[in-house]
């Protein structure tokens, strides 16, 4: 059954379905509706909602709840995520699963509240201290805001690692039909959790490894799970890539504009296809390589000064020319604008 739903609210509906029963957060535009929906819904099913004193506190409350084995989440936007980076590093180091939603707005500093995709480095490459990875999912629709939040909980538990839902102000604020029906989603047992029970008394959650060899071994274990994630968890979508000569790459809201631009450009006779990474980490490197191999050139569009494009270049490693177009400051390119860019790019093809 379809309901008209806001992206931010779909996040909470997904979280409820995934069995998340604790939300700790601090308000910020354009993510606040997530906290507001949690404040409304969580207490109605006996869950916990606390408006923390800061994002620093919220992420550490998340740490506590995750240590107790709960499915727990928080959400914010750039300035809040900057404050959470400390906690995210600890969560990763202590191998605690949780879900963090970043509804990106324009930065740096206070910037403005309009959409950007400029937290890519901070979320995908780390941002906190130490060697760790976040699992990062990038929804492009209201439906995916719910579905990828559910997936984020599953992956977080599977890999005992923070999972980030990385989206932007437009996907968070827009409304679309959401098709969500109740189903049982079982969270795995967490025998390592600290619950204040006789069975869990010996359990210990921490990121301290005082001896170099111990910490190295710990990090090697983490690396091994990250490699497993890279092998098993990449997700992506392709649109009209079959006979494309030009491959455009974009995620989140940009992929939506690109999709319309591809339709339009195809009407104009340009052989262009769209590759949309759904997991930003692990990045769908192999699939992108395959898609790019059939084309002559790759064109990346982002609401940033060029962040994901670095991963595209790494993936293609010089095998295809990679061009970039970015809008920033809260500007989102129109379909016409991107059609024009696609025309330029394809005109330069030989």
């Amino acid at each position, binding site marked *: *059954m*379809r*309901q*008209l739903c806001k992206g931010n609210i779909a996040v909470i509906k997904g979280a409820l*379905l995934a069995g998340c029963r*604790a939300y700790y957060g601090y308000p910020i*535009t*354009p993510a606040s509706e997530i906290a507001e929906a949690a404040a409304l*819904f969580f*207490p*109605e*099913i006996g869950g*916990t909602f*606390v408006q*923390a*004193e800061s994002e*620093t*506190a*919220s992420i*550490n*409350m*998340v*740490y*506590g709840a995750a*240590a*107790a084995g*709960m499915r727990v989440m928080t959400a914010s936007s750039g300035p809040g995520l900057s404050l959470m980076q400390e*906690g995210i590093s*600890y969560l990763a180091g202590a191998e605690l699963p949780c879900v963090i939603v970043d509804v990106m707005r324009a930065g740096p500093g206070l910037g403005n*509240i309009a959409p950007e995709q400029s937290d890519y480095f901070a979320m995908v490459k780390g941002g906190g201290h130490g060697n760790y990875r976040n699992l990062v999912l990038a929804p492009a629709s209201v439906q995916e805001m719910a579905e990828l939040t559910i997936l984020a909980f599953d992956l977080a538990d599977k890999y005992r690692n923070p999972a980030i839902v990385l989206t932007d*102000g*437009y996907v968070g*604020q*827009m*409304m*679309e*039909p959401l098709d*969500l029906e*109740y189903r049982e989603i079982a969270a795995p047992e967490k025998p390592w959790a*600290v*619950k*204040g*029970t006789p069975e869990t*008394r*010996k359990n*210990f*959650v*921490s*990121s301290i490894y*005082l001896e170099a060899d111990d910490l190295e071994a710990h990090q090697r274990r983490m690396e091994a799970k990250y490699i497993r994630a890279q092998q098993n968890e990449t997700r992506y979508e392709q649109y009209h890539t079959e006979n494309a000569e030009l491959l455009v790459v974009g995620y989140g*809201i940009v992929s*939506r*504009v*690109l*999709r319309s*631009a591809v339709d339009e450009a195809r009407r104009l006779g340009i052989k262009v296809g769209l590759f949309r990474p759904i997991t930003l980490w692990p990045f769908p490197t192999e699939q992108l390589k395959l898609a790019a191999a059939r084309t002559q050139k790759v064109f990346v569009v982002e609401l940033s000064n060029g962040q994901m494009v670095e991963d595209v270049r790494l993936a293609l490693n010089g095998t295809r020319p990679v061009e970039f177009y970015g809008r920033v400051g809260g500007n*989102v390119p*129109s*379909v*016409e604008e991107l059609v024009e860019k696609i025309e330029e790019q394809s005109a330069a093809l030989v």
Partner: protein
Amino acid sequence: MARELVGINAHPEASTDGYEVVHSKSEVFYPVYERKTDLKHQTHYCAGCGHGVVHKLIAEAIEELGLQDRTILVSPVGCSVFAYYYFDVGNVQVAHGRAPAAATGLHRACPDKVVIAYQGDGDLAAIGTAEIIHAANRGEKIAVFFVNNAIYGMTGGQMAPTTLVDQKSTTSPWGRRPVNEGFPLHMAEMLSSLQAPVYIERVALSDNKNIMKARRAVRKALELQRDGAGFSFVEILSPCPTIWGKDPVEAKRWVAEKMIPNFPLEVFRDHKIELPTNNAPPHKTVAELIEGKREEAAAPAPASAHHYRELGIKIAGFGGQGVLLLGQLLAEMGMREGLEVSWLPSYGPEMRSGSAHCQVWLSKEKIGSPLVSHPQVLVAMNEMSLRKFASEVAPGGIILYGRDQLPEDFTISQAQVVCIPASEIADRLGSAKVGNVVMVGALLEATECLHTTTAMKVLEAKVKNANLLELDRQALEAGRIYIDHHVAVGAVAQADGFTQ
């Protein structure tokens, strides 16, 4: 690391040459400290360190109260970072200063358990000031043991927020100077200004009598947790002989002579608190919450019946004119009629400053960009919106202007403009608020993009008050009739020439 206060093990298999067994230790301590990398029979604390004593008091209280299987200890960053080496309870180690926040998450996940946040003065009173104040203010049901040794021990003797005036540290090399560093922070007093805490006491490890008081305080704080009574806080003035450069006896004397006069020993709070249980949320099921209201579902009209492939609509006006709602109404109607829809609002301060707009797509196909840069239909509820967005309207499109006539100097060639005195019509119906619904009625009549019956169904689901619903029905009808009687409208042309 040297001799220590509590770590000497009474278990025969753990006895170590050169150490004298002084007393047996609490069963709440591990017999052998396997989590340590070496010297597994003794703690890492220096001789005369207050942490060792506080550990012992806590362990004994946990044992006496029978709480070992119910307790979660949150260890901080500071010399007591390794508390988990010793305590045979559930252990969670956290970031510097964040113990009260992590304890919040833990206790709320395990509401019938005893959660202890153990913190030093740098941890609690500097980097974690916000976390402790707010945990206390929320009345989190946790016990906080605050070891105030007036110095940063772990990092080698830097100034703490509790360092005394004139006290030297590596970062207050001439002694703490209030002119540069301010005065020592009195956490127990500060927290006593809050309503929620049930128990706040300051004790000292200066002599046996005071240590006995400290023992009672620690036990009381844990009893209160056992009983789920509320936030309890024990500040413990504590010697740090190594950093202070004193022997254990001198260090205790320094606590008595220097610290206690600065930090008075007192029970600052000891009362039960009855929390008001007002505004309890109703109970619902997850299915109810995620699936939305049943009645909102309606049998979809065939999408194929619509005369367009896709229709981009922009609606703009003052905040308060119901602009965003108008767009939602159209999107909801489109969804019920089996179309793909999207609704994208202007949001945040822009909205608050008085103007608002939203962009709606109705489409037979999956929607790409939710942005409508060239709307086929513009609903402009005020002059500003008309001037701002009219030039964006696609050739052959239509502008519905919510005033009785266009501004004199306004011209537009690519689109047809229809004026609807929406607020006058709404006023005549008896409520200025339904101006946006008048515009919906007009829009549906002028564009035939969706059915009026669907609009009523959506309104019925949304508007619970029968009088208001009737008003909306009249407003829809009035908008429709206005177009019907006053305006001849051509079909909205599709940009790609699509017609049906």
